């Protein structure tokens, strides 16, 4: 489809903003972790270490150089794919993360693949039959899910499926799952927990966005042309609600990033979030920073995609 010049300028602007945000975020991540209490050298050597030993280790790790210099070399490393060495295990961070990241991404992908279509279908359906029994049931369900924190959902899921019903294992070792059935079992509970929390918001926002467009004169016009309810909602209201819906989906999915920390911890799932939580307890700065950057980048990526979708779906930018 031909696009106007304004369209390309908008896209370029949006990508530029994303790049600038990324630099600011990396700055914040680096200095926030610098502010963490405790001295790495001290932690590594233990309470009994002498002053000299700690100072020596600090020098060896480059910790006595100015913070801004370390920031720049760290940023340069990130740009070239060098995430640095883990303080604790002395293995390259990239190596530590790569396995865990694919685990986390798999969890996020499975959750997304299940919750997004489900949430959109339920949200649009609720809007289409607004005020019906179905709509009310969906509304009550989503509100109850939203008001329960995810650690509660996770604990309840464990209680019901693992303890009472004994259907699923209480802990997930997704990476080690051999057969398809075993994998399904391993993923079921983390996915259910994450999916619940993520879809509830999406359902509500989708419903609201579609209902808002249903109340516009052009949808009433479609009704007066004899269009069916389906055609009115799917053909006329939905295309104009895409922008807000894309943003709702992105916002909810970005919640995966935060929600994953709790879920991975509870189910002992070997993902990035679990890695990060472990890294915090051992003051492993390069690892914490890299994990934090991964979370920030995925958040930024989702929001940027949503904004680009909104720009793409704006008919005023078509020629």
């Amino acid at each position, binding site marked *: 489809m031909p696009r106007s010049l304004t369209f390309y300028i908008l896209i370029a602007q949006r990508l530029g903003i994303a790049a600038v945000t990324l630099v600011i975020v990396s700055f914040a991540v680096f200095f926030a972790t610098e502010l963490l209490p405790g001295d790495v050298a001290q932690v590594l050597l233990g309470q009994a270490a002498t002053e000299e030993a700690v100072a020596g280790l600090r020098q060896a790790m480059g910790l006595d150089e100015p913070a801004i210099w370390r920031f720049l070399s760290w940023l340069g490393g990130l740009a070239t794919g060098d995430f640095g060495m883990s303080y604790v295990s002395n293995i390259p961070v990239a190596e530590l993360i790569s396995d865990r990241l694919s685990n986390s991404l798999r969890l996020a992908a499975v959750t997304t693949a299940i919750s997004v279509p489900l949430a959109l279908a339920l949200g649009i359906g609720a809007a289409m039959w607004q005020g019906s029994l179905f709509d009310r049931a969906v509304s009550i369900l989503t509100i109850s899910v939203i008001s329960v924190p995810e650690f509660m959902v996770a604990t309840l899921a464990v209680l019901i499926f693992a303890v009472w019903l004994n259907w699923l294992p209480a802990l997930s070792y997704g990476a080690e799952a051999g057969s398809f059935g075993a994998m399904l079992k391993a993923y079921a509970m983390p996915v259910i927990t994450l999916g619940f929390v993520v879809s509830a918001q999406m359902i509500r926002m989708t419903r609201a966005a579609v209902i808002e467009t249903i109340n516009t004169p052009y949808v009433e016009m479609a009704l*007066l*042309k004899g*269009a069916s309810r389906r055609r009115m909602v799917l053909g006329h209201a939905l295309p*104009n609600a895409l922008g807000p819906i894309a943003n709702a989906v992105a916002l909810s999915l970005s919640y995966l990033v935060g929600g994953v920390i709790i879920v991975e911890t509870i189910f002992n799932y070997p993902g990035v979030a679990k890695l990060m939580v472990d890294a915090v307890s051992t003051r492993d700065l390069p690892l914490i920073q890299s994990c934090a950057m991964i979370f920030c980048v995925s958040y930024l990526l989702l929001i940027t995609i949503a904004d680009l979708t909104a720009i793409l779906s704006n008919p005023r930018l078509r020629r």
Partner: protein
Amino acid sequence: MTQQPLVSVRDLRIGAVTDAGRKVEIIKGLDFDIHPGEIVALIGESGSGKTTTALSLMGHCRPGCAITGGSIRVGRHDVAAMSESARAHLRGTEVSYVPQSAAAAFNPSKRIMEQVIEITDIHGLMPKAEAEKKAVELFRALALPHPDTIGTRYPHQVSGGQLQRLAAAMALIGDPELVIFDEPTTALDVTTQIEVLKAFKSVMAAGGIAGVYVSHDLAVVAQVADRIIVLKGGEIQEEGGTEDILHRPAHPYTKALLAAFEPVPHVPATRDKAPNEAPILQVEHLFAGYGAVRKGEPDVKILKDVNFRIERGKNLGVIGESGSGKSTLARAVAGILPAYRGAMKFDGAELRPDLQSRSKDQLRRCQMVFQLADTALNPAQSIEAILSRPLAFYHGLSGRAKAARVAELLDMVHLPAAMRHRLPGELSGGQKQRINLARALAAEPELILCDEITSALDTVVAAAILDLLKELQSELGLSYMFISHDLSTVEAICDEVLVMLKGEVVEQLPAARMAADAQHPYSRLLISSVPQLDTGWLAGLDRAG
């Protein structure tokens, strides 16, 4: 008439449930017929039930309303008794609808052609290629420019007048027997309105299609309708042939509607002029525009070299089509949109272009009243809070003195003092506009900029606001700059009139002699485009559409 009527409505009742859950009857037992090929106008003020009645002919009620009794026979069907899916079969094929604002009724994300021929797709009337061919024929019949390609555009790429005609094409594509026009020209400029009315009239006559024309404007209705039904409060007040209603109205309400059309000669305020008195506002070579400023000039230049002066106690009207820069002029004078070149003097003293560098006293002396009281009044604040704000800001009033002044202001605009506890949402359109005016008066201004303040109001209500403006002027010695697209309103209150076109003043005329003195072709076009209460007016215009 021996012929069987196309539409018979008997004892139609429509009920609504208010937000508070109270049930009210908004249509109270209507009876009327429409014969094949006949155009019947439903006329009345807002809230009279004219749109509700018209929509009920399609079996449609807006959310919260429902048909509670009576029968609506259209052709062979009783619409009131049909199921929703059966009604859907009727819509677009037997009865179709032309909306008030085509700009809002076209889906912004779909191409025009797709929407125009959608009816044929919904009802499976004809193949797509045939439908598109028929649409192009309709575009041509409706005198649309580029009939072959206009369908490939998106709604935001064509003008308001064109969209309104495209909406008519959309209504006619399914060969309906009855078309409902819901105030289709209200949102248009007078010059565009003529083209649209002519196009509608010729297409309807050519197809022998019956129509229901909903409007509040008697002069427009006089051009298109065979018969007029006057509605008020959900009841028929009077029904008759167009000529009869216009020339021999029987009902007092019809007479009041007609009286609102009578030109009210403006009597200039007389006051002793002090020697060497400076004009209240003097504007010289004013330029203003929007957008990013480069080299001291904005990207989009609107006003070009505007000059005028308003003498103390006199009123200046500003007329022109939408987009002519009328509102921009008011915003530039008010300082909301700083002019980038030119000079303004207020009562002899320099008036800086931007708000920040004007003195508080200058701000106080020049107030602006906006077009839509609905958006200009904070819906969460009580009337008292709304009026108190300028009293505290300009005059430092508080406590009892402020409360007394609020009561005084309400009295000035003829509203009861008890109204101060209400919220704007609880007031009628006319009352809200009075509050809007009272807020400007609270500052004790000398010049009030009125931006289309009567255009959203019913004729009778608008006439009352004009009376109020005149009364306030003689009491307080105000001057008004009165912006309007409605020439008769301007004529009723102004001494001088500026005619604007594309950001420039083409002519300045004495209001009382507008029609006689206008020299510029655009002023003459504008003046001749105002519909007259004469059924032959439109046909008598010898102008290429």
